């Protein structure tokens, strides 16, 4: 009972997901736009701007983890391989790998999150971003889910 598996997903968070649209942020306007994000089966979100993919964990995932105490991040310059683990997130309850949604190179790491891992729980779609990956080659995002598909997945996992 000491380590609960992350697969023991319990409650579904209700309502829609609140996402900051960076282009609107610049104008000082915050917009909910869940449709602009792509999702993995393993609960990472990916925001694509040009050839840069910002990666984070969904609210669903961090709500299930609760009490996040440690995030193991890659170094800038490390390669990212689609579907491979690039880090770990550890809570009192469980530890879970974080998987790269795309191929490329880590070009930025959210250092503030390393110092204050609990911050990911407060704002998983904003200040809680994890890394930025510079995508190699022509980005192919077909393997990632859109918002509707992801919502469907978490609905089935929460039973």
């Amino acid at each position, binding site marked *: *009972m*000491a380590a*609960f598996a992350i697969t*023991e997903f319990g409650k579904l968070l209700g309502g829609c997901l609140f996402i900051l649209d960076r282009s609107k942020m610049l104008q000082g306007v915050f917009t909910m736009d869940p449709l602009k994000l792509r999702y993995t089966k393993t609960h990472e979100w990916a925001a694509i701007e040009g050839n840069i993919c910002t990666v984070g964990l969904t609210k669903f995932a961090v709500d299930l983890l*609760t009490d996040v105490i440690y995030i193991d991040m890659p170094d800038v310059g490390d390669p990212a391989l689609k579907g491979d683990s690039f880090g770990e997130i550890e809570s*009192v*309850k469980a530890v879970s790998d974080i998987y790269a949604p795309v191929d490329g190179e880590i070009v930025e790491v959210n250092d503030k999150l390393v110092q204050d891992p609990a911050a990911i729980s407060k704002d998983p779609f904003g200040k809680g971003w994890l890394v930025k990956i510079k995508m190699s080659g022509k980005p192919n995002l077909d393997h990632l889910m859109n918002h509707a598909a992801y919502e469907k997945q978490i609905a089935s996992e929460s039973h």
Partner: protein
Amino acid sequence: MALETSLHSWHSTHGARMVDFGGWDMPVQYTTIVDEHVSVRNDSGIFDIGHMGRLRIHGPDSTNFLQLTCSNNSANLRAGQVRYNLVCNEKGNILDDILVYQHADDFILVVNASNRLKIVSWLESNIKSLNVKIEDQTLSTSMIAVQGPKSINLAKQLISNDISKLGYYFSFDSKTMDIPSLVSRTGYTGEDGIEIILPRGEEIKVWEKLVSLGCKPCGLGARDTLRLEAGMPLYGHEIDESTNPLEAGLGWAVKFDKGEFIGKEALLKEKNTQSARIRVGVELSGKRIPRELYPITKNGTVVGKVTSGTFSPTFNKSIAMAYVPATLSAIGTELDVDIRGKSEPCKVVPLPFYKRKTT
């Protein structure tokens, strides 16, 4: 099909995440483990522990029977006294750790949920010619724990006898909100508090009343981190059928001078040759959690294993219990834990990690 306490639907409708524990569908947390943990350390929390097994032992040979089947002494218990005890097999290994209540003309045993059926049949097989009866009351009763520095003041408003005068590890029959109940000054959190056994179903109104008075509902997650800080073993982790009480640091619950008991011979041998491995507490400098079965290493060689670990909310650091060779068990010994391939330094510290201030 998992068993359910009568509070099951209360838990589900109050946001609890449920997990299977010892064959019961139980709440693991309502808010967060840390939040619930901190409430119990600073204030008060309430736990549904209806999954714990409750056995009544009665008949003229009850005392002799418990002396034979358990390692600690039940013959000198005073009226209402509660004592930690161990059920061992012939090899001296632990079948369960239990509480024995001296109660009126009988004994009440509180056993682990996961071991209940095993213990009932083990005890029955050892009755032989003794005049003793075992009654499993688990499914007809319920049990809740109210724990924390403010728990006594809160709960005493509901209980007919004065629980503030009840000694630690003593119990009495009393009325809780007019419901006949067995109240004990016991717990599994390292805090002051009580545990109440009630008829099944009757605990709901007591639970709701205590919650309305400010007791925070807590799940098994916080119960685990609280008992870990308090250095208490959990069956299936620190102790099981491959561990004996001496290496587990529970030698104080083995009374060699009380007469014969199952496992005595093996345990005497172990005592005379000294245990090769010992349960210790370790503290890490990093924040990562050493989890169950992670290897303990010394100079790169595996020397032991973690039995449970967590991030201690009270001390804000990672802690664990582990088995290590006796030669590496001294306080201050520097070791490493292999956390998923990365070696993290740790050192042996005294158990318990947390001891409450007694007034």
